[in-house]
C-alpha cells in the first residue's frame, strides 16, 4: 500500500471564538481549502489533533454534530503550551487540524431507545456532539435527558445551549453545581452528579446511558446505574487519555493492548471492564 504522510494537517480558519467559562473557549473552524472540506466527514465520538504552527498539537474531541455540515467545533481548556497558544488565537487566524480519528458512538443501534447523558465539567463537549446529533435525529429516539454538573455556575460550559435545552420540550436538562458553587440566582440542583442522579433516577428500561466525566464522577456514577438495573451493554463512555499521534503509533494512550485513539475512544462498559485500570 502506498503510504502517505499522516501528519500533514488541514489548515482551518477560526470563524468564531466563544468564551465558555474561565479558561475554556470554543472555536468554530472552517476548512481553508474547499477540497479538504469536500472529502472530510466524521461521526459522533471522533476526535482530532488541533495545532498552532510553531507550538504543537493538542487532542480534543469534535464537539459539533456531524449533522451540521461545513464546519467543526472544538472546546478546550487552557492547560499547557499548545492550549495556551490556541487560546491566544483570534477570529480569522489559521490553525491546523488532523482527523477525524477513533471509533464512534453506535447511535444507529440506539434508535427507539431513551438516552441519558451523564457528564461533568469539561466532559460535556465530547457528549455535546452526540446530544446535537440526537436532537437533529429527534424522531429516532424516545426521551432524551442530560444530567450535567460543574464545580460552580461559572464553570458550566455552553451556557446558551443549556438555556436552549432547558426551554425545549423534547429534551430534559438537569443541571447541578457542587455545594458552594451556586449563586443566589441559581435555579438548578446543588450537589455532585452521582447524588443528583440518585435523586432523579432514570428508568433502565430501553435506556442507553452515556457517561463522561472526571474519573471520580465515573467511579461513583456506575454503581448507581447498576443499582437502577442498567446492564453493562447499556452504558457507554469515551476515554480521554493523553494522545500524540491519534493513529495508534505513539503509544501514549495505550491501555493494555488497546490504543485508545484507534480502538477507542468510545467504549461500551463491558468492553471497558476487559481493560486494565490505566485510564
Amino acid at each position: 500500500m502506498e503510504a502517505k504522510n499522516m501528519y500533514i494537517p488541514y489548515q482551518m480558519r477560526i470563524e468564531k471564538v466563544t468564551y465558555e467559562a474561565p479558561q475554556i473557549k470554543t472555536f468554530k473552524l472552517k476548512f481553508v481549502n474547499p477540497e479538504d472540506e469536500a472529502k472530510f466527514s466524521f461521526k459522533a465520538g471522533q476526535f482530532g489533533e488541533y495545532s498552532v504552527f510553531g507550538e504543537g498539537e493538542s487532542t480534543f474531541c469534535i464537539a459539533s454534530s456531524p449533522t451540521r455540515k461545513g464546519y467543526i467545533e472544538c472546546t478546550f481548556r487552557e492547560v499547557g503550551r499548545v492550549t495556551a497558544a490556541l487560546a491566544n488565537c483570534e477570529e480569522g487566524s489559521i490553525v491546523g487540524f488532523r482527523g477525524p480519528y477513533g471509533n464512534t458512538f453506535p447511535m444507529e443501534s440506539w434508535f427507539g431507545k431513551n438516552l441519558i447523558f451523564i457528564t461533568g465539567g469539561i466532559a460535556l463537549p465530547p457528549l455535546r456532539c452526540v446530544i446535537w446529533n440526537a436532537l437533529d435525529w429527534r424522531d429516532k429516539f424516545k426521551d432524551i435527558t442530560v444530567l450535567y454538573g460543574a464545580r460552580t455556575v461559572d464553570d458550566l460550559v455552553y451556557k446558551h445551549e443549556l438555556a436552549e435545552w432547558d426551554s425545549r420540550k423534547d429534551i430534559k436538562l438537569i443541571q447541578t453545581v457542587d455545594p458552594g458553587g451556586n449563586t443566589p440566582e441559581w435555579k438548578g440542583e446543588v450537589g455532585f452528579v452521582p447524588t443528583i442522579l440518585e435523586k432523579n433516577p432514570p428508568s433502565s428500561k430501553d435506556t442507553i446511558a452515556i457517561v463522561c466525566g472526571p474519573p471520580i464522577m465515573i467511579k461513583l456514577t456506575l454503581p448507581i446505574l447498576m443499582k437502577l438495573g442498567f446492564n453493562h451493554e447499556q452504558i457507554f463512555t469515551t476515554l480521554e487519555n493523553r494522545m500524540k499521534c491519534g493513529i495508534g503509533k505513539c503509544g501514549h494512550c495505550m491501555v493494555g493492548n488497546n490504543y485508545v485513539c484507534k480502538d477507542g475512544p468510545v467504549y461500551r462498559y463491558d468492553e471497558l471492564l476487559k481493560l486494565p485500570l490505566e485510564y
Partner: protein
Amino acid sequence: MNYKTLKTDKLPELFDKIKKAGKTVLAPRKKGNKAFFSTFDSFDQITFDYVQSALSPKSVLFPRVEELLTYKNLDDSYSIKEPELKDEVVVFGMRPCDGIALDYLSDFFLKENPDKLLQDRKNNTTFISLACKKFDNDCFCTSVGSSPAETKGSDLCFTDMGNGSYYVEIVTDKGKKLVDAFPDLFADSKEMNKVEQLAKVPVRFDLKNITTKIPTVFETNIWLDQSLACIGCGACAYVCPTCSCFDIQDECNPKGGTRLRCWDACAFGQFTIHASGHNPREVQSNRWRNRVQHKFNYSVENLNTISCVGCGRCIRVCPAGMSIIEHLISVEEA
C-alpha cells in the same frame, strides 16, 4: 535463499564501491569501549571488536528526532512541506537480533496506518547483519525464540567462516540487488553450515511459560518488587531496538518552523498524564509493568509476536542494575 561468498579482505573495496555509487555506509565505530553505527572515511576506523553495538540501527528507520513537516508563514496562511527522503543507506555489522527488531518495527509501523517516513527509509536502506561469534552474560536471543543464525529482518547476512571469507546469505530482493551490483566481488556458493562458527548463547528461561503466564500476573506485586530500583530514566527504551513510542513537538522561528517526532518512553512519569493532572500510570511499578506487558503480552495480542529480541542492551545500560532476564524468571516463578 541464494548464497554467495565474499573474501574478507574485499570488504573495504565493497564499501568504497557502495559509496562511489552514491550511498551512505554506516558501520560500527568505537567511541570509548562502545561501538556505534557511524559513517567513516577509511576502513581502519571500523571496529569488529564488539559483542553488540551500543545502539541498534533502529534510528536509521526511525530517527531519534525527525521532521514530520516544515512550514513557512505566509500572509494569511502557511505553506506546508513534507520531507522527501531520498538518501540511500547501507548499514553493515548489526547483529541478527537487530534484524528481527527491524522486522517487528516494520510490521508495527507499516501494517496499519502505514507510516510514509519509515516506509521510505526502509525502501532506501539495505541492512547487512554480521552473525555473532561472541556473546556476553546479557545476551539472551536464544531465550526469546531466535539465535545468532537468524536472518529474518536482514537484507543480507554475513558470517565470518574463519577461512578468510564471509558466507553471505541473500535474504531479500534488496539484498540481492546490492550483491548483483558488484558481481566481481561476490562468488557463487552453496548453502553452508554456519552454525559451527557462531556463538552458543545459553537459554535462560522458557518463553512459552512466560507468554502464557504474563497476562495472569498483571495484578501481582512482582512488578513493584522488580522495579523498586527503577529511577524512570528511560534509558532502556532509548537503547531498545523495538521501542517505538514518540512525542510530537514544534520548533519555530519568526519565518516558519518544523514539526518534529522525537523518541519518548513509557518509563517517564509524564508519559500518560492527563490535562486534568490525573495520571493513569501513577507510580514507577505501573510503568515498568507496562513495558514488560507490552513486550511479552500486548505485542503478542496485537501483532502475534513478542517485541523483545534478547539483544541485552537494556540490561547493559540500566544505571540501577535492573535485568529483564531476572524479571522474566520471576514471572516464570510467580
